């Protein structure tokens, strides 16, 4: 059930100069959260940040009653979130949105670009409960931006591309050799990252006849289907990324 609730900041773990994981402790019992769900976090100490900011849930720890978010500093809201201190209170609306399909067998390819890795630790943990083989393919401009590979190695095979060739294969993640074979070994592809990357992955998936889900990012005012600002054109008309998504089957999108 969706709730508006205060959380207490426990810690920030900085992964590089602009990316951190923030862990928050719930003040009530943590709601059930599925991979792909997101939360709207209120950032209250700046007149420039009027609306809440949506973040994909990175991880949950039901035993510790904590939730964490993967945050890349891109503007005033994310900067202020990085400046919160242990013990500060943050108000969340959560859990929001739908979630990824969790297959119970076969081989899943996860493709993430930049901060698109955010939902996939939780997803990786969920699919690992089943006899599913997981391959994680990550792309970024440079090696500094490839983070959390150790955490993902515990959940499956990890492949990397960087545009400057500083780590893994050189070039765009969509051109990685794992995607360039005539026959791909995957039964299901999930992806999150820049639109251009997701569109390219969706095209490959369609060509190869592999089911594919994407998690979309969009500018939102509310996050729960009231404002109709975060629409995306689909075969069912304009749908809200916040309530009909953020996860969409690519066949549904007008890409």
């Amino acid at each position: 059930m969706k709730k508006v609730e205060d959380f207490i900041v426990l810690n920030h773990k900085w992964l590089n100069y602009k990316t951190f994981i923030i862990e928050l402790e719930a003040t009530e019992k943590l709601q059930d959260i599925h991979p792909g769900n997101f939360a709207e976090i209120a950032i209250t100490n700046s007149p420039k940040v009027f609306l809440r900011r949506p973040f994909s849930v990175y991880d949950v720890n039901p035993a510790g009653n904590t939730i964490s978010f993967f945050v890349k500093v891109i503007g005033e809201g994310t900067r202020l979130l990085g400046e919160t201190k242990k013990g500060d209170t943050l108000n969340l609306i959560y859990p929001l949105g739908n979630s990824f399909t969790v297959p119970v067998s076969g081989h899943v390819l996860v493709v993430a670009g930049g901060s698109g890795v955010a939902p996939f630790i939780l997803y990786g943990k969920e699919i690992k409960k089943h006899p599913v083989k997981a391959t994680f393919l990550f792309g970024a401009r440079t090696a500094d931006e490839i983070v959390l590979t150790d955490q993902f190695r515990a959940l499956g095979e990890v492949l990397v591309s960087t545009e400057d060739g500083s780590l893994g294969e050189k070039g765009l993640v969509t051109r990685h050799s794992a995607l360039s074979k005539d026959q791909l070994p995957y039964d299901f592809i999930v992806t999150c990252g820049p639109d251009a990357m997701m569109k390219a992955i969706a095209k490959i998936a369609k060509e190869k006849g592999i089911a594919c889900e994407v998690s979309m990012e969009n500018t939102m005012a509310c996050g729960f289907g009231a404002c109709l600002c975060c629409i995306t054109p689909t075969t069912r008309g304009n749908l809200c990324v916040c309530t009909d998504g953020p996860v969409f089957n690519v066949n549904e999108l007008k890409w």
Partner: protein
Amino acid sequence: MVNLEVKIHNLTWKNPVSTASGTFGYGEEFAEFMDVNRLGAIFTKGITLENREGNPYPRMAETASGMLNSVGLQNKGIDHYINTIYPGIRHYDTHIIPNVNGSTIEDYITVASKINAVEGIHAIELNISCPNVKAGGMAFGINPKTAAEATKAVRDVYKGTLIVKLSPNVTSIADMAKIVVDAGADAISLVNTFLGIAINSETRKPILGTITGGLSGPAIKPIALRMVWDVYKAVKVPIIGMGGIMNATDAIEFLLAGSSAIQIGTANYIDPAISIKILEGIEEYMIRQDIKSVTELTGAMKIS
């Protein structure tokens, strides 16, 4: 016990707190967060005659203490509203007030006539800020002649309480209020959003897909309050005030400026339970100030 009841024309609301059209969906979207039955009224999402997909993305730009939107009345049309949406929300113990839109006078008449035949709906809010396709897209509500025409045409076919929502993008909002009251409005709601633009200086592109959009949020509150006051002095019908109300203090200011009731808009996005908190805040204020009936606050700004 304080008395929170207000009268909007011949309609009694249990309290003056309602939610603005387009910011509260059809009420159901908020049912997990609050008890919508406690509201005085719900102004539901704008309806048009036909299904509308709305404007292209991006539809929203955050601005200093506010936001611009260009949603463009995305909705599935009046028949869907009457046959599918209304039956699912009519059980709410509050007034459901549809917000009526049109691209032509004929559209307005058709939508209003269809609602007139629905049992249980006792009021409509006429949005005259819509672009008039026959006048090159100029909004009905910024021209006195077309504002009067739209109001009169709907008045002729709609028998319930007719609330006309004014556009603030006019030279004299008091004159527009007089014009729509003369044309048959039973009450006035104001203000709709202010036209604005947001630009990304790096890309040199407008942020909204439609270039211009409607500004809402606390950034507009002082102007909205002034407009409510202007209208209060100009007409005798009840006023439903709105524009950047974020808390009970803001709501009380709108009552003091001349509103009989208020609508909460953009604040619903930030705290989906804010309307109930505002209702409780008004009640606490009345107890503290020893005010028996909330109607005593309407236009009670002390000037001298």
